[in-house]
């Protein structure tokens, strides 16, 4: 609208111009809706591809690992110490790759909403001890001490045991990864205080590098890296916390952290005591 000619035709012009602009906006909005739908469809195709490819990668990896274990176990004859070292390298590399492929698969299934829960009633303490013992050799290698504590007479939780163990495993793995040699990590379970449905609060803490408050939300997002040079120096897919959050939220729980640079980190998540509807 450039100018008003007369007072008489002003209302008509005022109406015509906004409706023109409105039509343009409406058309653009329609286009955008179509574009978003297309992008979503492509994103879900990509997610499906990721799920398929990571599943397919397991077969050749199974062959590599099993053949190497046949050699390691002397089934085809004894190996020299150098051969043994080399074969152990194949197995450990293969197993590491397998676990990373598994993480990508879990992530892809989570993104495609294909993860389902199989809840059972179990004691959280058992999961904490189990996951801790899986990390024993790594802790020894890095000279990091670990304590596992739980409040006496905690009620059992109602959750998918494997997935809760996965969350604890990812948090503990991170704690060990980002804690320098000689440090301390801990895993604790207690009854959650305050309002809301009854739940157990699990804490995984460390005396490691710590995370600046402005990054507390960012680190849970997929593909986000607080410091790409730091993540390159550390191992893993970088999806561990994204997966942990997905698995906790599937249970209707919450995950968060308390940390500052240089003071270590404390990650918390809740596990329901009763099944969430």
């Amino acid at each position: 609208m450039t100018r008003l000619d007369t007072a008489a035709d002003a209302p008509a012009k005022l109406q015509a111009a906004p409706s023109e602009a409105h039509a343009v906006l409406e058309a653009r909005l329609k286009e955008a809706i179509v574009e978003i739908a297309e992008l979503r469809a492509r994103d879900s195709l990509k997610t499906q591809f990721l799920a398929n490819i990571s599943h397919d990668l397991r077969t050749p990896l199974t062959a590599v690992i099993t053949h190497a274990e046949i050699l390691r176990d002397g089934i085809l004859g004894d190996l020299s110490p150098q051969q043994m070292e080399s074969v152990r390298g194949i197995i450990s590399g293969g197993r590491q790759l397998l676990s990373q492929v598994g993480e990508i698969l879990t992530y892809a299934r989570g993104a495609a909403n294909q993860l389902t829960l199989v809840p059972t009633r179990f004691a959280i303490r058992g999961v904490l001890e189990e996951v801790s013992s899986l990390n024993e050799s790594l802790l020894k290698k890095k000279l990091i001490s670990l304590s596992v504590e739980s409040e006496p007479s905690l009620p059992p939780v109602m959750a998918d045991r494997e997935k809760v163990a996965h969350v604890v495993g990812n948090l503990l793995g991170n704690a060990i990864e980002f804690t320098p040699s000689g440090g301390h990590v801990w895993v604790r379970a207690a009854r959650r205080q305050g309002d809301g449905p009854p739940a157990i609060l699990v804490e995984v803490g460390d005396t490691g590098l710590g995370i600046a408050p402005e990054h507390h939300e960012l680190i849970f997002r997929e593909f986000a890296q607080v410091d790409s040079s730091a993540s390159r120096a550390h191992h893993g897919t970088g999806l561990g916390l994204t997966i942990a959050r997905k698995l906790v939220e599937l249970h209707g729980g919450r995950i968060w952290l308390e940390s500052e640079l240089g003071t270590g980190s404390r990650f918390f998540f809740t596990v329901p005591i009763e099944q969430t509807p």
Partner: protein
Amino acid sequence: MSDREPAHALVIEDSAAVSGAMRILFESAGHRVSVAASVAEALSVGTNDPAELVLLDLTLPDGNGLSLVEPLRAAGCKTVVALTGHDDAETRAKCLAAGCADVFVKPVPARELVARSAKWLQSSANPPSV
């Protein structure tokens, strides 16, 4: 197993690299091993020469491996154990419901697989009186 026929283990797996490893493992444990790479091949081997132990992959080129559990057991195969790439409780429940005696996520550690197979074969020789 010196005074007995070696037990027959049927490996149903479409990856030759994986079935090759299974063959080495089970032959080294004193078993006779057959390999089938598809549902059709497994049905033919399993019905002509029923196995004491069947190691079953779930994803086969011509169908779902679980469809084999019933016909193989009906043909006289004793213990069917699923070896799957799917590491989840749902798959496990499906396998057990289909009649598998046990479910393992690949790759099962070589030592564990051999140790377990001895147990499976023993239980197939003396079926529990249920």
